[in-house]
């Protein structure tokens, strides 16, 4: 892990930087010693996508367009097995925080469906404690957020694709958040050239300017959006207000950031990838699991919490999994 004193410095630095008041915090998981460090991401405007001149640019990354993002908190790290297992096992549900204490949401934890136990080890022997959880479907990642919301009273969800890229760039417009070329990528990311064919513990590399670790590499991260190759072509040049493509089909949906299996150019801030039916190819059961992608050991997720939570009646749409 990142040394504590450095993290403290970073925290102090950030809180100074974010002088307008919103603070980082730690979300405790009731009934455990575990917590999730949430970093405040100030709202702002950024250029989404990449220019055709960027090395590794794909057609789906253009045209570039200006996007407005509202402030939110984002988890400092990718969700680890330590946390994800709590959701799989559901043995801490009885410690749900009374909704009068934290009242962003109105949910009964026992009404939230839980992931089925996989038949085989979904970490593929790559490690669990401190390592990112993988192979979950987007549904499972969404339900983790709903469950965490019910447990804590705070509204959590996956980031939109736009929020994800905004957070990854952390104010930069270069191919990577640390520069235009992949020359220094190994200082910031786990990818094909340095991962030793496995994912690595979260938080071992340098964070980006906003303190987020492993945005480039380690595991690709689920977002809320449907993947549309031409998504950016129908956007306005400016003032796209918190864009988000609500999925209507299971596939493809967007993962971001690239992974331990990818070559450098797939880790760029603008790189997009759509999920695929193939990610369940080796699931030997019918119906195939709603909860596990047997062939996607490169996919994980991290959570966000909007600074201004949506109204309770709207919240459901972020936890729904439309499949038509």
């Amino acid at each position, binding site marked *: 892990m990142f040394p504590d004193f450095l993290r403290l410095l970073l925290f102090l630095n950030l809180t100074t930087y974010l002088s307008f008041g919103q603070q980082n915090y730690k979300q405790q998981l009731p009934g455990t010693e575990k917590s999730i460090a949430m970093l405040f991401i100030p709202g702002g405007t950024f250029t989404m996508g990449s220019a055709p001149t960027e090395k590794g640019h794909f057609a789906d990354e253009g045209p570039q367009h200006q996007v407005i993002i509202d402030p939110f908190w984002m988890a400092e790290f990718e969700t680890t097995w330590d946390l994800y*297992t709590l959701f*799989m*096992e559901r043995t801490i549900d009885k410690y749900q925080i009374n909704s009068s204490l934290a009242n962003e949401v109105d949910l009964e934890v026992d009404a939230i469906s839980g992931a*089925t*136990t*996989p*038949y*085989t*080890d979904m*970490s*593929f*022997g790559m490690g*669990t404690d401190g390592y990112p959880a993988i192979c979950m479907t987007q549904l499972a990642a969404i339900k983790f957020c709903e469950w965490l919301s019910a447990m804590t009273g705070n509204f959590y969800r996956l980031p939109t694709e736009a929020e994800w890229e905004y957070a990854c760039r952390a104010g930069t417009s270069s191919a990577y958040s640390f520069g235009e070329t992949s020359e220094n990528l190994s200082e910031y990311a786990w990818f094909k050239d340095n991962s030793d*064919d*496995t994912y690595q513990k979260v938080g071992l590399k340098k964070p980006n300017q906003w303190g987020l670790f492993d945005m480039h590499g380690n595991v690709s991260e689920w977002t809320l959006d449907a993947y549309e190759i031409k998504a950016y072509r129908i956007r306005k040049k400016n003032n796209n207000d918190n864009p988000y493509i609500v999925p209507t089909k299971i596939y493809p949906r967007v993962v971001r950031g690239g992974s331990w*299996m990818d070559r450098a150019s797939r880790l760029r801030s603008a790189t997009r990838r759509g999920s*695929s039916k*193939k*990610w369940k*190819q*080796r*699931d*030997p*059961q*019918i*119906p*195939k699991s709603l909860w596990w992608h047997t*062939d*996607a*050991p*490169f996919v994980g997720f991290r959570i966000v919490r909007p600074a201004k939570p949506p109204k309770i009646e709207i919240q459901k749409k972020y936890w729904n999994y439309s499949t038509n």
Partner: protein
Amino acid sequence: MKKQSNSRRNFIKTTTLATGAVITAPLQMNFMAPGLGNKKLKLALVGCGGRGSGATVQALTADPDVELVAMADAFHDRIEKSLKGIQEHFGEDKKIDVKEKNRFDGFDAYKKAIDLADVVILTTPPGFRPYHFEYAITNDKHVFMEKPVATDPVGVRKVLEMAKIAKAKKLNVVVGLQRHYQSKYIDLKKRIDNGVIGQIRSGQVYWNDAGVWVKKRKAGQSELEYQMRNWYYFNWLCGDHILEQHIHNIDVANWFIGDYPLSAQGMGGRQVRNGKDHGEIFDHHFVEFTYANGAVISSQCRHIPGTMSRVDEVFQGTKGSITLGNGVIKDLEGNHQFSYPIKWGEDPNPYQVEHDKLFSSIRSGGVISDTENGAKSTLSAILGRMATYTGKKITFEEALNSQLHLMPESLTWDSTPPSIPDSNGNYSIPTPGKTKFI
């Protein structure tokens, strides 16, 4: 408790005699499978769980002219759920329908379904397999069956006997030890056979994870129905996880060494998963398998949440070592020699390859005979279970000739299952040093 074990012993005695009679019956050899050319192939599914439904989809995908004509399961609701899943998988691409009258439930349903088919999929809990397989081969059907192929040595012997008959009749039998159909394993096995790590002297095989599903007892269920629903936790149906899952890894050790173990000794127990919902199986086993050439394989399987997860096989040879999981071969100094290029989601799906090969062999008049290895790897895992349950060293030969007979040969919904709980709802748990080798 004492009374139960007595009645169980009596039960074993009587049924063993009956089984002996079946095994020595003269072989009926008046059938030879014809090449099935372009004929439409009729398929029956026996055992309509998730795996059976998956295997059916693969069979229907492997060959364009296969029709699912019959389904059988102990439970009607499983048949309906399975059919729905298969239909939804194909959607508009392929119309799947099984006539109401060809959906059979109950303990003898398998016969009615098998009668209607050319090819059968046997995917019930493994305890039933020997008896279903016997019926399929006796009636000249090609077979895909899931591993393991029995839960006791009586069943293993029956399957071995039927293996010979299937071969003589030129019937194709694929056993769901799918690593044999997986590109990575096939490629690496060739390299081992070519001597890249020399002779295998030792190895470690693992199936350690958090465990599998548990089905809660429901009001109104008979003991038999409860056990059939929660079958993973009852030995007559499942054979313990060292057999039901870990067979894959033990089988890889057998395959790569090119032999079956001579003997086994080990330890195990149930320390964490030990509630009333968890029947009679252990939550961990550690077994040392010794082979005729002196190679020793350490086998570990564990179903305990929050512990190290690993499903893998590793071997050390006289010239180097290999890890099957990541496909890496190293020399004796630990220098990297080779990595199998794993392409997630792109390598052929071994579960599909099993059926592609099965149907193409049926069409061309070939013979795939996975049965004998399936039976012997099943026995290897049973041998491991016998070693951990008794705490004794047991030889393969002893296991092969064991009179242990967990699976009743015939059942009705009125039958009493072989394991019954005491007045507190607890089942009798095997105890090393006390549990006898039978």
